């Protein structure tokens, strides 16, 4: 069966990423506008169970390749299969969530099909049978509209949390079509090392972030065995981040950081939010001791509600914040953690 719109269901260890369903919902929206059905492409090993979830999230058909050789995402065989699915369906549009995997997958599939790929889409409309996608450029300082008129399918990767999840229709089912003939992977996944990062930043509904200010707690005296000044500063910062982690725990939030905090060695790069780190769109972003440089704003400006806690009343972060506290985060954050704990009963 030919489905005009294909949604790619990104998965890790056999579980679909949350934003994959956002892609499927967007695919349904496009299919309704241009006419036609939605096919969900599911690739991996032990992923057949995801077909049921895909039907319940709105897929008309599932195009499935479930094979031992597809354990661990590798872009080469996955791109071949996705390109094959697109050809088989004469797809007009392929929609996928944006992740570390799909940037490679989208790019390679576009080369295979000699077509256009628009990454990190935050909004789109359908005009005359084509998708006009909007995506941020120049670190989010500008937005460009992008359209693919000269080739098909147009491949889009959607920014996580920029589109709603579709309603579930329990028990809905459809046909499963198997994709055969994956090319051999060129690379071998040796192992995974856990990041220890807790809740994933890109999927998080709430993020609590710390900046350079986490190290500036005047009331702390580092233990005497830490003589080195830089090590003392890092020790202070770690105490600051432990306050941020406590607040994050109450809010079931992910922990973020500004570039200044990462560059100073306070916290690993995987936590960095901003132009040279992760771009996030949570419901709530709590910025603690972050001044809000333009490069940091590039990574979090699209948060629905920003809460800023900073000593400096003139800090740019207050210009984009909905709620602000001018004060020392080392006093305000623990007090806020306590107040929220009481109110939320967590």
């Amino acid at each position, binding site marked *: 069966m030919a489905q005009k719109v294909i949604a790619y269901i990104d998965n890790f260890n056999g579980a679909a990423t949350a934003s994959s369903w956002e892609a499927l919902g967007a695919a349904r929206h496009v299919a309704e506008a241009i006419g036609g059905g939605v096919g969900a492409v599911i690739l991996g090993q032990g992923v057949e169970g995801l077909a049921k979830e895909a039907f319940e999230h709105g897929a008309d058909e599932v195009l499935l390749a479930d094979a031992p050789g597809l354990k661990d995402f590798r872009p080469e065989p996955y791109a071949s299969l996705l390109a094959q699915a697109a050809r088989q369906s004469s797809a007009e549009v392929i929609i996928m969530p944006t992740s570390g995997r799909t940037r490679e997958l989208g790019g390679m599939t576009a080369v295979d099909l000699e077509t256009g790929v628009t990454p990190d889409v935050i909004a789109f409309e359908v005009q005359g049978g084509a998708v006009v996608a909007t995506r941020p450029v120049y670190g989010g300082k500008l*937005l460009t509209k992008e359209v693919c008129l000269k080739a098909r399918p147009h491949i889009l990767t959607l920014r996580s949390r920029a589109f709603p999840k579709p309603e579930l229709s329990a028990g809905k089912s459809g046909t499963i079509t198997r994709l055969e003939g994956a090319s051999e992977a060129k690379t071998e996944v040796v192992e995974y*090392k856990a990041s220890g990062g807790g809740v994933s930043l890109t999927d998080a509904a709430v993020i609590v972030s710390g900046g350079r200010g986490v190290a500036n707690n005047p009331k702390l005296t580092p233990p005497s065995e830490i003589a080195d000044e830089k090590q003392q500063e890092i020790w202070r910062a770690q105490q600051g981040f432990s306050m941020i982690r406590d607040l994050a725990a109450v809010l079931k939030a992910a922990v973020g950081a500004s570039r200044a905090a990462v560059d100073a060695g306070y916290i690993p790069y995987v936590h960095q939010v901003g132009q040279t780190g992760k771009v996030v769109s949570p419901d709530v972003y709590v910025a603690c001791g972050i001044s809000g440089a333009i490069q940091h704003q590039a990574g979090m400006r699209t948060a629905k509600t920003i809460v800023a806690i900073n000593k400096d009343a003139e800090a740019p972060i*207050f210009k984009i914040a909905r709620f602000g*506290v001018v*004060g020392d985060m080392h006093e305000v954050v623990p007090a806020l953690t306590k107040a929220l704990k009481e109110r939320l009963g967590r």
Partner: protein
Amino acid sequence: MNIVVCVKQTPDTAATLTVQSGKVSWGDAPLVINPWDEYAVEQALRTKEAHGGKVTALSLGPEQAREALKHALAMGCDEAILVSDPAFEGGDSLVVSKALAAAIQKIGSIDLAFFGRQAVDSETALMGAQVARRLGWPSLSLVAAVAALDPAAKTITVERMLDEGRQVVRSPLPAAMSVVKEINEPRYPSFMGIRKASKAEIPVWTAAALGLDSVPAPVLSWPEIIAPPKVEIQCEIIQGASVDEIAAKLADRLIQEKVI
């Protein structure tokens, strides 16, 4: 090791951008080497320093993109090549990946091609994977560390930074890799390096020189580019007699407004 590093010239990230009749302008702000690409250049140089060989910096762009190549030369790259042709102007990632892949093939016998994670202007983060696909090479993106490199066996093992953690991947060479900033701390160009770069000959390779008889027109177009609408946000500053009072008020407001 025969190494290529692809760099792009971009406006400085601190530049104030405006859009005038559909064109992006950065005023007097300088054009620089894409900040992400400095990590790629650094990694290319470290690879050469550890295993010997040669590093060629490659850039596609107008004549002025020479300056980005000079920065790469000043950091220590051995040679630089500018891929430039009116036919590449306004090219999308399909066009650019085709030209860069053709240039890498023309250099010949490359073991590793380095890329920055993404360019700070177009922000696509596609180029490493697309060039790899065109060359039939493995793509290693988001590389945060090189765990092992064996030039004799032609294998490399890298750690990739995924949302779910670090993925350790072994790959044959040649391969293309894009690096994240955790991988190293880029060096500053040395005085000697700057002098050497200012005298360096940078050849220009046109589409014809790359054997691309006809450069396809871009499949993507950009009907509109705008500054995001200014959202006027009135920040509600929470005040109180004590920190506990402020925290209590803030918690109440967040719950009232259904923020949490």
